[in-house]
């Protein structure tokens, strides 16, 4: 009996607490509907995980940092005690960031120059990114000299003799 009475009272309270919504709220919400309702939104997944797992932002940040360090350790091929982690991170960033981006940019430039009919040679497929003694690309200039782009992204203008010397050194390094 008491339970029924309480249930009825709660239902009455629900009726008594119905409030009008501000006119315009519905339109405000509708205006925020994205043009494309995408079933997958990568950027908000992390927030969702935090909400769903009910873990604090601090704990989530700690998990993300540990994951990054672990991945860096794996890519670096070092143990992840002492200085190994730092070296691993540096190596990974060098490969994923500067070194690789330079190779791709030079490759794109090479294709562009070929299309222009310039005398250009690309060695990028055979050299290690970041190697400052390896020739990534050579371009013959109108005055007979060569503009060289090295594996670390640095450039230098050399004459034919210097170019042969650089190639010899590169070949020697490869055979070692």
């Amino acid at each position, binding site marked *: 009996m*008491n*339970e029924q*009475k*309480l*249930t009825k*009272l*709660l*239902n*009455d*309270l*629900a*009726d*008594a*607490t*119905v*409030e*009008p*919504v*501000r006119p315009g*709220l*519905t339109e*405000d*919400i*509708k205006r*925020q*509907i*994205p*043009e*494309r*309702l*995408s*079933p*997958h*939104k990568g950027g*908000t997944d992390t927030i*969702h995980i935090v*909400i769903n797992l009910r873990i604090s932002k601090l704990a989530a940040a700690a998990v993300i940092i540990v994951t990054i360090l672990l991945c860096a350790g794996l890519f670096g091929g070092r143990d992840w005690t002492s200085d190994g982690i730092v070296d691993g991170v540096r190596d990974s960033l060098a490969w994923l960031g500067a070194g690789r981006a330079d190779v791709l940019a030079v490759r794109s430039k090479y294709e562009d120059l070929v299309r222009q009919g310039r005398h250009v040679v690309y060695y990028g497929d055979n050299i290690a990114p970041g190697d400052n003694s390896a020739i990534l690309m050579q371009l013959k200039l109108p005055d007979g000299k060569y503009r060289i782009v090295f594996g670390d992204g640095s450039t230098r203008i050399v004459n034919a003799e210097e170019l042969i010397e650089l190639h010899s050194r590169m070949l020697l390094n490869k055979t070692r």
Partner: protein
Amino acid sequence: MAKKAKLTEQNTGFAHPISGQGDADKKGKYLAELRDSLAARLRAGDHAAAGEFVDMYNEQIFLFMRRLGHDRQVSEDLTQESFLQAWQHISQLRNGKALNGWLYRIAGNVSKLYWRKHKGREMASIEGADIDVPENSEAGCDIAGHYEQLGRLKNAVAYLPEKLRQAVVLHYMQHLTIAEAAEAAGVREGTFKSRLNRALETLRKQVL
């Protein structure tokens, strides 16, 4: 105030008395089909369906926020935030049956995050529950007593622990079924029933 039809649509959730069982069955079937179709269209990224979804639920979510103790302005903001979150998590909507539980779960999380960020903030009272006792003497003591009980109940609900208050609001005031409300609270049905029982026990002691 006349209640909107869309609000009473959820009364098939068994927290309300049902007049005719046959009518209720028909209405329940119709609503289930409507929600299935809406959920499928939402999942397919249908913009018009999103508009219908807002029409169908924005008042309910606003009232849910008010009943959880947020003031009017905050309730409006949190209602908008709930829908924004809903658009971003469309992929988690399984089917029409899960529509209520899914949206109320998002809204519940939005409210929870708000309380977490504003820990010292006091709960606001619901305007409609500042109930005036009618002066007409013919209305009798029964009505006055009823309103007095409602006032006490309103305060008692407000002072319930957060999880118990949410359980009462979801089932008895938003009229979600036990399954939907449990989904919205993110717990198993058994756990939800247990919360509901504890909440009712507390309210019974304070009000009756």
